[in-house]
């Protein structure tokens, strides 16, 4: 049974109203800055392929997704990066390939990053946790240098510490640093030093991907750091975009703030590539 509330024109809906109805958000440009692809050993993930991702994007109204396969952040950097490039070729303009360096293979990182940049990747992804490698370690330096030279987004799961992030952001001022999962799952925005870095460094941003979401905290974070520092991400297929986008769509913030977070800012970061 559904509520009797009806509307005849989806273009008149607010973002909240569209979300409650499950209507695609056709009037808002949405960029998901954090997606994986492919099978993962750790747990079953239904429909983890690029075609399934695009179908889900269509259902919600997501225009673009930045992808870095689970294979790339685990056992095989090169094969995983090839998966991204193939997915981007299969879905031009919808899937944006990122390059993943495996810093444990330090001697290969520069050539692999350059290969991916030449092939058209739109950003770089680190996973310091799965790769068990510090953000400030030398194995990542070629990736930092290339992100800076080509003015690319660089999203990292793990940044060692707020101070390391600050020093790195200042050392590579043309790269756009995105702290994965930092836009979600923390309790005290006003007291968390990672947010001081986002407030003070012009090239540091926060990604919303994350399963944990305490009541009311997302709106507090938007108020604290400003919508322009926060980027929508959904962690597909570890998490479902249909769930992940809800923390933004139904948050007690303005539609203009939602549009910034959903894609406005990320469009700008993607446009600086040289």
């Amino acid at each position: 049974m559904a509520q009797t509330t009806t509307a005849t024109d989806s273009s008149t809906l607010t973002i909240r109203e569209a979300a409650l109805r499950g209507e695609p958000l056709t009037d808002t440009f949405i960029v998901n800055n954090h997606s994986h692809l492919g099978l993962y050993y750790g747990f079953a993930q239904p429909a983890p392929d690029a075609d399934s991702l695009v179908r889900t994007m269509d259902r919600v109204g997501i225009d673009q997704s930045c992808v870095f396969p689970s294979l790339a952040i685990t056992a095989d950097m090169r094969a995983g990066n090839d998966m991204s490039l193939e997915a981007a070729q299969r879905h031009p303009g919808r899937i944006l390939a990122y390059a993943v360096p495996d810093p444990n293979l330090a001697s290969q990182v520069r050539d692999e990053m350059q290969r991916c940049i030449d092939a058209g990747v739109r950003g770089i992804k680190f996973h310091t946790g799965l790769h068990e490698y510090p953000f400030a370690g030398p194995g990542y330096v070629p990736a930092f240098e290339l992100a800076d030279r080509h003015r690319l987004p660089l999203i990292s799961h793990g940044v060692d510490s707020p101070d390391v992030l600050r020093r790195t952001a200042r050392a590579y001022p043309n790269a756009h640093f995105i702290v994965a999962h930092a836009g979600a799952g923390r309790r005290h925005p006003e007291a968390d030093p990672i947010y001081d870095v986002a407030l003070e460094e012009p090239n540091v941003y926060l990604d919303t991907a994350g399963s944990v979401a305490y009541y009311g905290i997302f709106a507090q974070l938007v108020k604290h750091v400003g919508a322009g520092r926060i980027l929508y991400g959904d962690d597909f297929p570890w998490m479902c975009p249909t769930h992940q986008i809800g923390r933004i769509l139904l948050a007690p913030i303005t539609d203009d703030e939602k549009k910034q977070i959903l894609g406005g800012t990320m469009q700008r970061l993607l446009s600086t590539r040289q």
Partner: protein
Amino acid sequence: MREIPHLFDANALLGPIFLRHDDTPDDVPRLLAALDENGISRALVTHGRAKWQHPAIGNRLVIEQTKGIDRLVPCWVVLPSITGEVPPERELVAQLLESGARAARLCTGMNRLTLEPFEIDTLLEALAERRVPLFLDTNNRHWSEDRPWAFIEWAVRTFPTLPLVLLREPPANYRTLFTLMERHSNLYIETSYFQGHDAIAHVAGRWGADRLVFGTGIPEWDPGMAITGLTYASFSVEDRDAVAGGSLQRLLDNCVV
């Protein structure tokens, strides 16, 4: 254009909760306002003091504070009776139903329950006799935490008339969960944390939408993700509406009052 579904939240708390903040809706008027803001029509509510103080206190409060408010359906926290903290099991369940409550919540880790059969079998038997749905609350936060699978398997196998609902079931346990969903029709999933890609539609397509109940975890958890996880799920409007509230209502209606 799709209509807004009637959302009946299976996982809500009323009153003060641990680690709440200034924006937490911690009384009836604030909870009702928060439900309105999120388009939630009704909620099955456990009292925060039943979970974070004691069932003997919170169960009384949830009845008092929901009296006359049709949108809020009370749910009790239950315990074994051996310590004398609550009445004997059959009496406890009878009181639960007489009070107007239609569901029970078992707070496993918080109440330091081992979930061994010798500890919990009398309570589950009493609930099963009256078909009172039991909501399993492990107070879990992240998907990587362990779940009490041996207990869950024993409970649904031993008490087939007991509907067992897994609150905040995470997206990382399908290899175990799906085995039990296949074998035991009295096992249900609450959807607030069930956010693996396409997982809700997958379960609805394989075992039926009536095996899923919509929940949010309000006011501890952000309800937005649970709501859009349902409204944008890749299934029919009929399945969506069943998960949104039909499945829960059926479970509550099946209590032997």
